[in-house]
């Protein structure tokens, strides 16, 4: 277990309850999504794990050590990607990476090599000598992430890393996070307001509201809580019965039948199988696809009685 919070309570100024008996766990190599509205306690939970604040009671353990505001040992094994872009505008991207690398004890050849590797990872290899002021919002965000990766942390905490950037940069970052978790077995805690982001990258999701976890599990597990089967209807020209056998052999397919020109397929709730279904039916001319399934947004709505966007506005 890389990080664990057990029955954690944190009050600000002795009054406002920010964490209310919070339980959370993250294992090696998994991406954990932390989903919740503003003020739900996401950042407080993260700060407790990093050691930026002391909790009032409960256990916060990181890499087997009790974490608190004065334990600096484990910090060199954690990378924090802050919600706001925290790079120095007057220094070049290279100098920023150099600075943050040195903060974590990197030097000499290792530091140079890591800067080169990270620059490739974040797609800024050819623009390292420019100052971030000249960068787009997405590039700044990528540099912000890069600064947290230099020391090869075993646990990376990303606090809303895609706020305020264009969809292209957002997709780049999401793909990058997925690749990072896959290739390096780094554990990642990813907080976001954007449900679709959390749904896309998380192995497990914690939904947090008013300081405590109201639901946890994989995305399909959470979706199963609010929905029965998922139904897909695919219309094709000149369908053949034999395609049904292939469809039925796919994992998560509970039932498939042909209704005139429409294949009707029942899937387990939360299954992400649309690509495979379409590929299976690709020998035919597909004229229409209908996919009726619940999303994490529905889960959130059911559990909290509000959408994330509503809670942002309020």
């Amino acid at each position: 277990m890389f990080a664990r919070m057990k029955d954690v309570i944190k009050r600000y100024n002795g009054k406002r309850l920010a964490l209310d008996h919070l339980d959370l766990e993250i294992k090696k190599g998994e991406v954990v999504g932390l989903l919740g509205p503003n003020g739900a306690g996401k950042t407080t939970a993260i700060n407790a794990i990093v050691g930026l604040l002391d909790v009032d009671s409960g256990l916060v353990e990181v890499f087997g050590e009790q974490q608190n505001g004065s334990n600096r040992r484990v910090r060199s094994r954690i990378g924090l990607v802050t919600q706001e872009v925290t790079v120095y505008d007057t220094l070049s991207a290279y100098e920023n990476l150099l600075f943050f690398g040195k903060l974590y004890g990197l030097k000499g050849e290792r530091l140079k090599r890591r800067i080169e590797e990270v620059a490739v990872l974040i797609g800024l290899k050819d623009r390292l000598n420019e100052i971030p002021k000249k960068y787009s919002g997405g590039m700044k965000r990528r540099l912000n992430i890069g600064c947290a990766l230099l020391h090869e942390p075993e646990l990376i905490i990303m606090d809303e890393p895609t706020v305020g950037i264009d969809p292209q940069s957002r997709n780049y970052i999401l793909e990058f996070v997925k690749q990072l978790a896959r290739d390096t077995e780094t554990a990642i805690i990813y907080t976001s307001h954007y449900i679709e982001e959390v749904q896309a990258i998380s192995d497990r999701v914690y939904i947090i509201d008013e300081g405590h976890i109201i639901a946890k599990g994989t995305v399909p597990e959470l979706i199963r809580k609010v929905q029965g089967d998922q139904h897909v209807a695919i219309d094709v020209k000149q369908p053949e019965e034999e395609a049904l056998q292939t469809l039925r052999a796919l994992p998560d397919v509970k039932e498939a039948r042909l209704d005139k020109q429409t294949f009707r397929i029942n899937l387990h709730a939360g299954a992400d199988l649309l690509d495979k279904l379409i590929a299976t039916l690709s020998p035919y001319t597909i004229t229409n696809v209908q996919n009726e399934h619940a999303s994490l947004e529905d889960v959130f709505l059911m559990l909290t009685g509000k959408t994330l966007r509503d809670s942002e506005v309020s």
Partner: protein
Amino acid sequence: MFRFYALRVLKDYLGHVIFIGLPLVLIYVNMEIQANAHPDADLGHIAFFMGIGFILMFQIFGAAYTTEGMEGDFFTSFKDRLRASPVHPVRFMVTNMFYSSLVSFLQLMLILAFIFVIYEPTVSNWGLAVLVIFLGVGFTQTLGAVVIILVKKANKAQAVITLYAIGGSILAGHIIGLPDNAVINFLKDYASPISWQRISIEYFVDGDYAMGMLGIGLLLGAWAIILMVLLRMSRRVIA
């Protein structure tokens, strides 16, 4: 890390223009006026003490390096990123103050060098004057750190520092002529660290080492007190 803090201060080009260029222009213009008004006066001597007046004033404005650096590090979203690193936050503060002091001191030395090159003053013990300026820079940057921790905004801190710079300079007799009486003369010599530096330099130049050391002693005493205040505050606010 150290290189970064040096770079950050060195790359403040506007700061260099203000803290070096402005006093040089002011000294030059004032000296032109003095030269026309008193053609037979010892212009070198006048230039030296006028320069010291400007140096002591701009030394205080130089606290902006510490206040702005610390605002960026501890009173913006950077705070969490820096505190999340294995480096103790007080080290960021000390490093920032060290390079701010160094750059501010070098700027002031450029002003002094300008005076020596252009007006060729013949003053003795000017090396001790440099020592006093060096200690004054350390005191001022420490004061800047205390003020920014108290007010948390660099512009507010700078307003406080400016008030102190102008008030202290007026009391030290650097900006306007003050009446000649016992009370005013006492205030002129002992009212603030600016005065302590001025009397210290004047006594050293006159060869009165004991009185010169009095000014340094007062400055060091005040510096020690605000350093203790700073350490106490920094443990509570930024660590």
